[in-house]
């Protein structure tokens, strides 16, 4: 059961990621990214992280991707033109990515003592998670809320239409 679910959603994940690279229109890329994130939520659930699975769907495929789709529609982003871009980025970057993937794969396949994951095993309850989050890690949690507040203010300040100091937009 776990194997089937893993293979199914890992396949969705990879297909969505590859589709993101192949599509030329940003809205199609955004929709494939939603597929990737939702499949990842199922994989989190398989690994026993039920809170993260819910948060992944609500925060990532909900809030963040709505923001992306909204910006794509707002800016009326058309089809991307396939220029070659920087030649150095291709000549050095792509072999470097392949090398990185090869090194990571070799390391992962050589890790000793890595267990397996079976269904309904090692489930993390909300109780454990919130116990650690609100006792040991309360300060980072509160600092994160300040970070979000600053990000909202920054986003409003950046995206505002002209700031009344002479640098008004068109």
């Amino acid at each position, binding site marked *: *059961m776990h*194997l089937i679910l*893993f293979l199914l959603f*890992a396949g969705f*994940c*990879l297909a969505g*990621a590859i589709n*993101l*690279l192949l599509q030329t229109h*940003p809205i199609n*890329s955004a929709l494939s*990214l939603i597929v990737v*994130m939702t499949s*990842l939520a199922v*994989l989190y659930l398989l*690994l*026993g*992280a039920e*809170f*993260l699975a819910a*948060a*992944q769907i609500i*925060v*990532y495929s909900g*809030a*963040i991707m709505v*923001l*992306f789709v909204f910006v794509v529609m707002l*800016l009326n*982003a058309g089809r*991307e033109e396939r*220029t070659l*871009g920087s030649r150095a*980025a*291709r000549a050095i*970057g792509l072999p470097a990515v392949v090398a*990185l993937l090869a090194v*990571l*794969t070799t390391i*992962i*396949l050589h890790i000793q003592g*890595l*267990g*397996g*994951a*079976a269904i309904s095993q*090692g489930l*993390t309850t909300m109780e454990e*998670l919130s116990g*650690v989050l609100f006792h040991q*890690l309360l300060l980072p949690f509160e600092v*994160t809320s300040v970070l979000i507040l600053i*990000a*909202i203010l*920054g*986003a409003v300040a*950046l*995206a505002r*239409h002209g700031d009344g100091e002479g640098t008004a*937009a068109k």
Partner: protein
Amino acid sequence: MSFLHQEVPLSWYLLLSAALFSLGVVGFILKRNLITVFMSIELMLNGVNLSFVTFAHQWHEVKGQIFVFFVMMVAAAEAAVGLAIIIAVFRARATLAVDRIDLMKL
């Protein structure tokens, strides 16, 4: 019955995570649209999150999952600010092609 309780090796999850991260890097290098480049960054973050959750499962440690929670929060803040910057850039340049956005001066 044994079929129902078949285990999946955690290294498969790690391999998927590495593959997602690499696809994100490839997208970051190859894509020519500012928004899609930004989406590739989100893809990389998701790949890393998967390996956090995998190791949290391996060591029965809750803190790995809490780290993913913090990464999500930071990613949400990053998306809000980044997309605002993209809107500001689009307003100044009227283009989203990364080749034509090569000056910091607006």
